[in-house]
Protein backbone atom coordinates (compact mmCIF):
# COMPACT_ATOMS: atom_id res chain seq x y z
CA UNK A 1 0.00 0.00 0.00
CA UNK A 2 1.42 3.34 -1.11
CA UNK A 3 0.95 6.70 0.60
CA UNK A 4 1.99 9.89 -1.15
CA UNK A 5 1.94 12.97 1.07
CA UNK A 6 1.72 16.42 -0.47
CA UNK A 7 2.63 19.52 1.48
CA UNK A 8 1.33 23.02 0.89
CA UNK A 9 -1.20 25.63 1.87
CA UNK A 10 -4.87 24.94 1.36
CA UNK A 11 -6.11 27.12 -1.50
CA UNK A 12 -8.40 29.83 -0.12
CA UNK A 13 -11.06 29.16 -2.76
CA UNK A 14 -11.14 25.37 -3.05
CA UNK A 15 -10.08 24.62 0.51
CA UNK A 16 -7.72 21.96 -0.81
CA UNK A 17 -3.94 21.60 -0.93
CA UNK A 18 -4.30 19.64 -4.15
CA UNK A 19 -7.36 18.23 -5.88
CA UNK A 20 -7.82 14.51 -5.33
CA UNK A 21 -8.39 13.98 -9.03
CA UNK A 22 -5.08 15.65 -9.91
CA UNK A 23 -3.14 13.69 -7.30
CA UNK A 24 -4.78 10.34 -8.08
CA UNK A 25 -4.14 10.76 -11.79
CA UNK A 26 -0.52 11.83 -11.18
CA UNK A 27 0.25 8.80 -9.00
CA UNK A 28 -1.63 6.44 -11.32
CA UNK A 29 0.33 7.53 -14.40
CA UNK A 30 3.77 7.80 -12.86
CA UNK A 31 3.71 4.91 -10.40
CA UNK A 32 0.76 2.53 -10.37
CA UNK A 33 0.70 1.94 -14.12
CA UNK A 34 4.39 0.96 -14.00
CA UNK A 35 4.22 -1.36 -11.00
CA UNK A 36 0.78 -2.92 -10.81
CA UNK A 37 0.85 -6.60 -11.77
CA UNK A 38 4.48 -6.32 -12.72
CA UNK A 39 7.19 -8.72 -11.69
CA UNK A 40 9.49 -6.25 -9.98
CA UNK A 41 12.60 -8.30 -10.71
CA UNK A 42 11.92 -8.66 -14.43
CA UNK A 43 9.48 -6.04 -15.71
CA UNK A 44 10.72 -2.75 -14.31
CA UNK A 45 13.68 -1.29 -16.17
CA UNK A 46 14.83 0.86 -13.26
CA UNK A 47 15.04 -2.20 -11.02
CA UNK A 48 17.35 -4.19 -13.27
CA UNK A 49 20.46 -4.99 -11.26
CA UNK A 50 18.81 -3.66 -8.10
CA UNK A 51 17.40 -5.86 -5.35
CA UNK A 52 13.69 -4.95 -5.26
CA UNK A 53 13.52 -4.42 -1.53
CA UNK A 54 10.80 -2.07 -0.42
CA UNK A 55 13.51 0.42 0.54
CA UNK A 56 14.64 0.53 -3.08
CA UNK A 57 11.07 0.56 -4.32
CA UNK A 58 10.21 3.57 -2.14
CA UNK A 59 13.26 5.44 -3.46
CA UNK A 60 12.26 4.62 -7.04
CA UNK A 61 8.69 5.82 -6.48
CA UNK A 62 10.00 9.05 -4.98
CA UNK A 63 12.28 9.50 -7.98
CA UNK A 64 9.48 8.93 -10.51
CA UNK A 65 7.26 11.42 -8.71
CA UNK A 66 10.03 14.02 -8.47
CA UNK A 67 10.89 13.71 -12.17
CA UNK A 68 7.38 14.76 -13.20
CA UNK A 69 6.57 16.96 -10.22
CA UNK A 70 7.71 20.38 -11.44
CA UNK A 71 6.08 20.02 -14.84
CA UNK A 72 2.72 18.89 -13.56
CA UNK A 73 2.37 20.13 -9.99
CA UNK A 74 5.09 22.75 -9.57
CA UNK A 75 2.84 25.63 -10.57
CA UNK A 76 0.46 24.78 -7.73
CA UNK A 77 3.14 25.55 -5.13
CA UNK A 78 2.88 22.15 -3.47
CA UNK A 79 5.75 19.88 -2.52
CA UNK A 80 6.23 16.16 -2.21
CA UNK A 81 6.51 15.60 1.54
CA UNK A 82 6.69 11.84 1.89
CA UNK A 83 6.43 8.50 0.15
CA UNK A 84 5.49 5.59 2.37
CA UNK A 85 4.95 1.99 1.40
CA UNK A 86 3.38 -0.63 3.61
CA UNK A 87 4.88 -3.91 2.51
CA UNK A 88 2.83 -5.83 5.05
CA UNK A 89 0.71 -4.65 7.96
CA UNK A 90 3.88 -4.83 10.09
CA UNK A 91 6.52 -3.44 7.73
CA UNK A 92 6.48 0.02 6.27
CA UNK A 93 9.14 2.12 4.55
CA UNK A 94 9.18 5.86 4.26
CA UNK A 95 11.19 8.37 2.24
CA UNK A 96 11.02 11.98 3.35
CA UNK A 97 12.31 15.08 1.69
Amino acid at each position, binding site marked *: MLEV*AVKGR*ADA*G*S*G*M*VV*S*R*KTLDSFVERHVISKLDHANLNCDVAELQGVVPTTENLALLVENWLKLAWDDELGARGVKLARVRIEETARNSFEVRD
Partner: protein
Amino acid sequence: MVLITRKAEFSASHYCASPGLSPEENEELYGPASRPSGHGHNYVLEVTVAGDVDPASGMIMDLKDLKQMIQDRVVEVYDHRFLNHEVPPFDRVVPTPENIARDIWERLTPGVNDDGRRLHGIRLYETADLYVDYFGEDAP
Protein backbone atom coordinates in the same frame (compact mmCIF):
# COMPACT_ATOMS: atom_id res chain seq x y z
CA MET B 1 10.20 17.01 24.20
CA VAL B 2 7.78 14.12 23.90
CA LEU B 3 4.72 13.78 21.67
CA ILE B 4 1.49 12.25 22.86
CA THR B 5 -1.46 11.43 20.61
CA ARG B 6 -5.09 10.89 21.50
CA LYS B 7 -7.61 9.51 19.02
CA ALA B 8 -11.31 10.29 18.68
CA GLU B 9 -14.02 9.67 16.13
CA PHE B 10 -17.05 11.53 14.92
CA SER B 11 -19.55 11.06 12.14
CA ALA B 12 -20.68 14.01 10.07
CA SER B 13 -22.06 14.86 6.68
CA HIS B 14 -20.92 17.54 4.27
CA TYR B 15 -20.59 18.53 0.66
CA CYS B 16 -17.77 20.46 -1.00
CA ALA B 17 -18.69 23.33 -3.27
CA SER B 18 -16.84 26.59 -3.68
CA PRO B 19 -19.34 29.50 -3.61
CA GLY B 20 -17.70 31.27 -6.57
CA LEU B 21 -18.12 28.30 -8.91
CA SER B 22 -21.04 26.94 -10.91
CA PRO B 23 -22.46 23.48 -10.09
CA GLU B 24 -20.67 22.11 -13.17
CA GLU B 25 -17.34 23.62 -12.11
CA ASN B 26 -17.76 22.26 -8.60
CA GLU B 27 -18.51 18.79 -9.95
CA GLU B 28 -15.34 19.05 -12.03
CA LEU B 29 -13.26 20.09 -9.01
CA TYR B 30 -14.68 17.93 -6.23
CA GLY B 31 -16.51 15.17 -8.13
CA PRO B 32 -19.69 13.73 -6.62
CA ALA B 33 -18.65 15.24 -3.24
CA SER B 34 -19.99 18.57 -4.57
CA ARG B 35 -23.64 17.48 -4.68
CA PRO B 36 -25.63 19.55 -2.16
CA SER B 37 -27.60 16.66 -0.70
CA GLY B 38 -24.35 15.79 1.05
CA HIS B 39 -22.73 12.53 2.12
CA GLY B 40 -21.28 11.20 5.33
CA HIS B 41 -17.91 10.22 6.73
CA ASN B 42 -16.80 8.49 9.88
CA TYR B 43 -13.94 10.84 10.62
CA VAL B 44 -11.00 9.65 12.70
CA LEU B 45 -9.14 12.39 14.52
CA GLU B 46 -5.66 12.20 16.04
CA VAL B 47 -4.59 15.07 18.26
CA THR B 48 -0.88 15.28 19.07
CA VAL B 49 0.47 17.37 21.94
CA ALA B 50 4.16 18.15 22.39
CA GLY B 51 5.63 18.90 25.76
CA ASP B 52 8.01 18.29 28.59
CA VAL B 53 7.42 15.32 30.83
CA ASP B 54 6.59 16.52 34.32
CA PRO B 55 9.14 14.85 36.63
CA ALA B 56 6.61 14.19 39.36
CA SER B 57 3.62 12.90 37.35
CA GLY B 58 5.65 11.44 34.48
CA MET B 59 3.13 12.94 32.04
CA ILE B 60 3.00 15.74 29.48
CA MET B 61 -0.60 16.36 30.37
CA ASP B 62 -3.39 14.43 31.99
CA LEU B 63 -4.88 12.30 29.22
CA LYS B 64 -8.35 12.56 30.73
CA ASP B 65 -8.15 16.32 30.33
CA LEU B 66 -7.14 15.95 26.71
CA LYS B 67 -9.89 13.41 26.09
CA GLN B 68 -12.45 15.74 27.69
CA MET B 69 -11.24 18.75 25.69
CA ILE B 70 -11.54 16.82 22.42
CA GLN B 71 -15.00 15.66 23.45
CA ASP B 72 -16.25 19.13 24.48
CA ARG B 73 -14.60 21.27 21.83
CA VAL B 74 -14.74 19.00 18.80
CA VAL B 75 -16.87 15.87 19.05
CA GLU B 76 -19.83 17.63 20.67
CA VAL B 77 -19.68 20.28 17.97
CA TYR B 78 -19.18 18.04 14.93
CA ASP B 79 -20.75 14.68 15.68
CA HIS B 80 -23.88 13.83 13.71
CA ARG B 81 -24.05 17.29 12.15
CA PHE B 82 -24.41 18.42 8.56
CA LEU B 83 -21.32 20.61 8.61
CA ASN B 84 -22.36 23.03 5.85
CA HIS B 85 -25.67 23.82 7.55
CA GLU B 86 -25.01 23.36 11.24
CA VAL B 87 -21.36 24.08 12.10
CA PRO B 88 -19.88 27.52 11.40
CA PRO B 89 -17.57 28.47 9.73
CA PHE B 90 -18.64 25.82 7.19
CA ASP B 91 -21.63 27.88 6.14
CA ARG B 92 -19.01 29.94 4.25
CA VAL B 93 -15.81 27.84 4.32
CA VAL B 94 -15.70 24.66 2.20
CA PRO B 95 -15.57 21.72 4.66
CA THR B 96 -12.63 19.95 3.04
CA PRO B 97 -10.55 17.89 5.47
CA GLU B 98 -7.85 20.58 5.12
CA ASN B 99 -10.25 23.24 6.43
CA ILE B 100 -11.79 20.96 9.07
CA ALA B 101 -8.33 20.12 10.45
CA ARG B 102 -7.54 23.84 10.70
CA ASP B 103 -10.84 24.54 12.47
CA ILE B 104 -10.16 21.72 14.96
CA TRP B 105 -6.69 23.17 15.57
CA GLU B 106 -8.23 26.55 16.38
CA ARG B 107 -10.82 25.02 18.70
CA LEU B 108 -8.21 23.02 20.66
CA THR B 109 -5.26 25.42 20.83
CA PRO B 110 -6.57 27.62 23.68
CA GLY B 111 -7.21 24.64 25.95
CA VAL B 112 -4.16 22.57 25.09
CA ASN B 113 -1.43 25.22 25.01
CA ASP B 114 -0.07 25.82 28.47
CA ASP B 115 3.23 26.00 30.33
CA GLY B 116 5.47 23.26 28.97
CA ARG B 117 3.11 21.96 26.30
CA ARG B 118 1.54 22.94 23.02
CA LEU B 119 -0.66 21.52 20.31
CA HIS B 120 1.70 19.88 17.82
CA GLY B 121 -0.53 18.51 15.09
CA ILE B 122 -3.95 17.44 13.93
CA ARG B 123 -4.35 14.37 11.75
CA LEU B 124 -7.81 13.90 10.32
CA TYR B 125 -8.80 10.80 8.37
CA GLU B 126 -11.75 11.42 6.09
CA THR B 127 -11.52 7.87 4.76
CA ALA B 128 -8.98 5.09 5.27
CA ASP B 129 -7.26 6.30 2.08
CA LEU B 130 -7.24 10.03 2.68
CA TYR B 131 -5.93 11.99 5.64
CA VAL B 132 -4.70 15.49 6.31
CA ASP B 133 -1.94 16.61 8.69
CA TYR B 134 -2.11 20.17 9.96
CA PHE B 135 0.66 21.73 12.04
CA GLY B 136 -0.55 25.34 12.25
CA GLU B 137 -0.25 28.25 9.84
CA ASP B 138 3.35 28.90 10.92
CA ALA B 139 4.54 25.36 10.15
CA PRO B 140 7.61 25.32 7.89
